[in-house]
């Protein structure tokens, strides 16, 4: 059976300075930097704190431990651009995140993104899942995350096949364990 290797090539990590969130995102000035410095996003219209919060929220909505933060951050970066053009959106994001953080503070004594336990963060999200911001992030992730061609190999999905002659000679019927 033609089995795919789903393991990502690991990147070398190096030291960085700045405020590190509970889950390893670093906020430096207007930048939010990922765990291994493999990516960085700049936030101006949305505060860097809120940007990091949204990235954490995206992770908690569709958590895949083998996916780097950058795949989640990509969806959130779109919001930074949108907030620059759309005032109503910008204030909706700030308002909804404030609500989430105040719920987090009153129950877990910390901002949402700084809560260490996933179960507790999910508990906060669960109570806000009807909110327009949550629904937007969830809806956008369905396409933004799972339609990102870079993540497909990590799920064992090969994508386009016609240019390779389909699977006729590439394992369409090679199951060997039944």
């Amino acid at each position, binding site marked *: *059976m033609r089995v795919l290797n789903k393991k990502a090539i690991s990147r070398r990590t190096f030291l960085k300075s700045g405020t590190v969130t509970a889950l390893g995102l670093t906020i430096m000035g207007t930048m939010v930097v990922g765990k291994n410095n493999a990516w960085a996003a700049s936030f101006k219209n949305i505060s860097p704190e809120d940007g990091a919060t949204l990235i954490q929220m995206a992770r908690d909505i*569709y958590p895949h431990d083998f996916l780097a933060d950058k795949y989640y951050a990509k969806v959130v970066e779109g919001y930074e651009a949108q907030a620059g053009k759309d005032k109503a959106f910008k204030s909706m994001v700030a308002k909804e995140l404030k609500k989430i953080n105040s719920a987090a503070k009153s129950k877990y004594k910390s901002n949402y993104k700084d809560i260490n336990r996933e179960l507790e963060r999910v508990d906060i999200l669960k109570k806000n899942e009807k909110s327009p911001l949550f629904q937007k992030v969830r809806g956008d992730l369905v396409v933004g995350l799972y339609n990102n061609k870079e993540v497909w190999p990590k799920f064992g999905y090969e994508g386009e096949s016609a240019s390779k002659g*389909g699977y006729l000679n*590439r*394992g*369409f*019927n090679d199951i060997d*364990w*039944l």
Partner: protein
Amino acid sequence: MPKFSKNDDSLVVIIGSGAGGGTLGHELAKRGVKCVILEAGGRHGPQDFQNDEWGSFGQISWLDQRTTSGKWRVARDFSGLPAWIVKAVGGSTIHWAGASLRFQKHEWKARTTYGNVKGANLLDWPIDHKEMAPWYAKAENEMGTTGTNGIPRLPGNNNYKVLAAGAKKMGYKEFHTGNMSINSQPRDGRGSCQQIGFCFQGCKSGAKWSTGYSSIPKGEATGKLECRSNSQVLRIEHDKSGKVNGVVYADKNGKIHKQKARVVCVAGNSIESPRLLLNSESSMYKNGMGNSSGHVGRNYMRHMTASTYAIFEKPVYFYRGTTMAGIIQDEAHNNTKRGFVGGYELETLALGLPFMAAFLDPGQWGREFSASMEGYDHMAGLWIVGEDMPQASNRVSLHKKLKDKYGMPIPNVHFTDHENDVKMRNHAWKQSIALYESVGATKTIKTPPYPSTHNLGTNRMSAKAKDGVVNKYGQTWDIKNLFVSDGSQFTTGAAENPTLTIVALAMRQAQYIAKQMSSKAI
């Protein structure tokens, strides 16, 4: 390729180029009848089909605004997308999976067989198994259906092998790789299946039969058929006597044209066809064209559907190869001991990762959902397709306020499951979960119905004018030169994928129309 004048009033004008319209145009052209197909979408083919689910969705889907109502889950999760069908030359034969099944004998006589099912608006078809048998044979030959005409069945892919192993364990007897209108060997100028795995996105090898690149080019080659793409019909018009005499359509620049006609055939799929008839109201036809019975738009059926996905310890790669070449038919029979009337087919199905995320369990989030997605390459899957009960209240109607860019009211699609549909779905989930568990599934997922691909029944065929919209030839009871040529003619839905029956009916209708024209009856 001919180009007919818009003032030519000797033409048969066919609205839509899918299984019904594309076939009808080809068959009429072969008989020397001049016809024009007006297709709302553009022309695409194997050269520009995309092995990319969302890319292809944007390229070929019918995305005009629609609304939904009723208790079906589609109205909650995909409120603007009641149906997943195609706007392109070839219609939904671009997107279809290729499954080509004949109705079972009893399914032509649902009212007689099932009796008076409470809340259902059942009716017998005015035609039967015997009458349709030669037309089915003709359709299978035209489409190159595997398992017929000496055409070998397709080889089974990994997803089929899991299904078949489970079927054996369950004691099922009737399972194989299907009757598929996908070439298992070169035939009719088209090559054989390359196991590409993107059947729903338009077949890039052309092995799958489609009116778009098979029937329509053949019709055009006769010199009698013109297929005018990017031509969206807005209204059908009639003369003082009440006979239809032309249609009004918009071209791709939004410019309005009128095409004269001797005969008009509506084949725009079961949402647009009734919408068009309702939008063609006039002082003579106040409730819409062909609607003296009040049945236009009613009895909307979509098949009882659902999916079951199962995750195994080891990989399957179910997306490799022909999507739907695998079927179990043991549950398709009418066996009321199961607690419902009618039956269902179990057919292999796989989605790519992007569509799996959208459809596996719409709206869900969190670790449970993500864990299922992480089992993607270890998944097997099947589609459940069974007979649903026609109900008068399930209907396509005109939206009271919203209009499209041409000022025509948009359609609303209202649907609620009948109790029989719910019982059948639960039975099918139970059986398919047992099937996958029998071969070692470690997790199974019940996936709800997708936006409808099998849209049926909204201009139904009846023996009496008061019970439906069209007679046994798809001719409207009210207007003798106005026909319905798509799945909206279906009196009842049967358990089988509908395309083969739509094609067979269109072939039969072509013979009738040609005869009626030559005898000057129309």
